[in-house]
């Protein structure tokens, strides 16, 4: 679609993004935060935002698990530490704790508070039905702020006319 056609069809209004739908597919700290920052930042700019949690990304909205999201210290070359060191017991917890302190200093909230805050901004939180079924989860396992558990087709309906971001 050309830019002119996109503007004419309302996908782009005045050259601005009007709506984003963000897919969260990973359950690590570094997998979840970028999506949350993008969603919160969208709402702060007046952009409509929806979050779709799929596969291990579901942990971010899982009542029992969302307080225990860990930084991946194995298979994460960005940490610049030896892979064997990242696998030692407790290393992931220590690194997660270290990062949490740095984030707090920068006014970045912990994941449970951040998710609640994003729901309060009016963004929609949705669980992926296929993943919920796969992991044997129920609505009750997910935090109250989750609006619904939806299919891929319903996600595309929800995302229609906006931008989709996969993380």
């Amino acid at each position, binding site marked *: 679609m050309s830019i002119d056609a996109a503007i004419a069809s309302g996908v782009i209004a005045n050259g601005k993004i009007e709506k984003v739908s963000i897919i969260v597919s990973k359950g690590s700290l570094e997998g979840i935060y970028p999506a949350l*920052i993008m969603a919160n930042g969208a709402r702060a*700019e*007046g952009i409509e935002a929806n979050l779709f949690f799929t596969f291990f990304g579901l942990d971010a909205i899982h009542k029992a698990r969302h307080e225990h999201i860990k930084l991946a210290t194995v298979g994460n070359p960005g940490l610049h530490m030896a892979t064997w060191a990242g696998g030692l017991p407790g290393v992931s917890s220590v690194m997660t704790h270290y990062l949490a302190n740095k984030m707090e200093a*920068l006014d970045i909230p912990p994941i449970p508070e951040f998710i609640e805050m994003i729901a309060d901004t009016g963004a929609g939180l949705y669980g992926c039905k296929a993943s919920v079924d796969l992991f044997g989860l129920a609505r009750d396992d997910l935090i109250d702020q989750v609006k619904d558990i939806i299919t891929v087709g319903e996600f595309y309906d929800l995302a229609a006319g906006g931008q989709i971001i996969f993380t």
Partner: protein
Amino acid sequence: MPDMTYAGTQVSVTEEGFFTDPDQWREEMAPQIAREAGIETLTDRHWQVIKFMRHEYAEKGTGPSVRALSKTSGVSIKELYELFPKGPAKLAAKIAGIPKPRGCI
């Protein structure tokens, strides 16, 4: 840099409409800036936030993030978005005549 006239006084604003000199701002300009930003009437709750933005800017030299705004102003995030649907930190800063906050959170 475009100029705007609010409450009969000419002021300098950025392309996006944020004041370049917060000292040019006066309370009686706020309702007109708000209307241009899509907020028809400023309620007491709006004013609580606007005054808080001015106060924070005077203290720290920058407007607060939405999280900080909610934590310290006593207005919940939900209500902030009801008051300023197009983004509380940004809109309240514009109406309060302070520069656009640049935080990511």
